[in-house]
């Protein structure tokens, strides 16, 4: 029942203007061709999961979206702004795109609260008090408000990753990028982080998530993108991709993933 509703909703979303447009994006590391003609449109409010074997270019692709990596050919538009060497445009994009990393990357010398308020205060020019209230609101939402005065090193991996999510949300981004958010975590902590991301997905946030968590992909993704060797091999609804894979590469990948779990 709920599944049908969700699919109706996702169909409605595709009418919205695209939040992210990737048009024939190419990237090389030296001679190594890591992204090959990648084209992908992500609609506002859409949740996309990217999966694929390691080294397939998934992380590189989402890191290109906020220009932590630069692409060499093709176009990337975020909220209608094209990524280029224009620093002003880049600032506008980064302000609207939140990112969560595999290794959390919290600032270890700042408290949890300071981690969350730094960017709102300095990038959004928000008054300190307001930023702190906002941070506490998001820390409550990721269920760790009591840790606000601690330092990242005093928290567990799962808690740190939830702080990282709260930190990104404090910038009130329109788009969230997740780069393998649970790969560095112990199994019991994966669950708490995924729950946080699922509840975020339920708010209608536009999300792109690189992950190997197939259960999670089924639960939240509107679309699953399978990448291999720098190109998009297949994409479709979770059911299409996981139940009726068309290519051998995807079949092989799925069999390996299933064996692994």
């Amino acid at each position: 029942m709920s599944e049908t509703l969700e699919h109706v909703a996702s169909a409605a979303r595709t009418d919205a203007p695209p939040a992210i447009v990737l048009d024939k994006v190419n990237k090389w590391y030296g001679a190594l061709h890591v992204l090959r003609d990648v084209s992908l449109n992500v609609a506002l409010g859409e949740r996309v999961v990217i999966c694929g074997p390691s080294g397939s270019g998934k992380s590189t692709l989402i890191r290109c979206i906020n220009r932590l990596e630069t692409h060499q050919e093709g176009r990337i538009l975020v909220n209608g702004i094209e990524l280029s060497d224009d620093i002003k445009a880049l600032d506008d994009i980064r302000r609207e795109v939140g990112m969560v990393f595999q290794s959390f990357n919290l600032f270890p010398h700042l408290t949890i609260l300071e981690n969350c308020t730094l960017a709102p205060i300095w990038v959004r020019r928000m008054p300190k008090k307001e930023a702190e209230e906002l941070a506490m609101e998001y820390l409550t939402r990721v269920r760790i408000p009591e840790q606000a005065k601690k330092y990242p090193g005093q928290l567990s991996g799962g808690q740190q990753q939830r702080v990282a999510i709260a930190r990104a949300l404090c910038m009130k981004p329109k788009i969230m990028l997740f780069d393998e958010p649970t790969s560095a975590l112990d199994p019991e902590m994966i669950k708490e982080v995924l729950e946080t991301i699922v509840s975020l997905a339920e708010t209608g946030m536009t999300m792109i998530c690189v992950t190997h968590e197939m259960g999670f992909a089924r639960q939240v993704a509107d679309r699953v993108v399978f990448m291999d060797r720098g190109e998009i091999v297949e994409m479709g609804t979770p059911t299409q991709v996981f139940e009726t894979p068309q290519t051998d590469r995807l079949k092989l990948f799925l069999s390996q993933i299933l064996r692994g779990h």
Partner: protein
Amino acid sequence: MSDITLNAATAAPEAAPRTPPASQIGLLAWVRANLFSGWLSTLVTLALAYLILRWVVGFVEWGIINAVWSVPNSQTQACRDMKGIGACWAVVTEKHRFILFGTYPYEEHWRPALCILLFIGLYIVSAMRRFWRSGLAFLWAGVLAVIGVLMWGGVLGLPYVPQERWGGLVITLILATFGLAFAFPLAILVALGRRSKLPAIKAICVLYVELIRGVPLISLLFMASVMFPLFLPEGMNIDKLLRAQIAIILFAGAYLAEVVRGGLQALPKGQYEAADALGLNYWQKTGFIILPQALRLVIPPLVNTFIGFFKDTSLVLIIGIFDLLTAGKTAIIEPAWQGFGIEVYITVGAIYFVFCFAMSKYSQGLEAELNRHRRR
């Protein structure tokens, strides 16, 4: 094996935590473990204890019991009688003003004395974390300006004292404080510049560091004192002390820049990326995320360099500036006091030691305090 543990566990199900046996803790156990753990260790301990005791007794006899503390009117006969048996601290009593203030006019000695107190006060205030705010920079600017006015005079009814007459401890403190106060920010900029993506900035910074590091400080001081004036237009003359000061700043800056760069390189790339992803601009990223972490990492080598430069200021003697060490050396040139170098050098050494040891101790505390976030 597993049976035994099982039995032991059932035998005392709720055993209270026990303290270790008395023979394992306390002073006695420490002494036994560290000083008398075997026949060789016992032998070494006894031999060293004998040597230390002999040396301490000898020093106390020479430096305190048999010492001559003062003599009337530079009549050093009393000292000469005790030569080799007792120290002649009279030379320090007699010459302490010269060692501290050099050839500064006698009746104006309160001015460099006040400057020394101002420097020490500035160090103490700067060391306290509760004063670490933007106001501290203004305090530094203010105090350094006041020190300049006090030393030169010529205003507010203070007689003018040319720089050639300054000397002693106050010169050492001026060179070291101004030197490090300017070299440190310079070093941070150069270290950042060396990692810049802009080729011109990077090239300038690399060139600066490699050029300055490749030359001894002495030759830089010579260049500053002899060659530099040749490049200046006729009639224009920059103070000798200022020239030496600039040479020291440039030299210290190059060394400190490499220390700071080490810290920058030790930071994980993820920290830069997280700051970028949040939309912080270059200076925000550098000021809030990168430098605070990088500098904490390099506190030990940073203080090591600071201490090294505090002592390296004594090299200015070769261009004729009277720092603490040179003043001490000059104090014993006078025929009446010749031969009492040991006492003067011990005193000068003790002064250097107090400043360097304070820096070292403070840095250890600071390191523990600032890296508190690493503790779990």
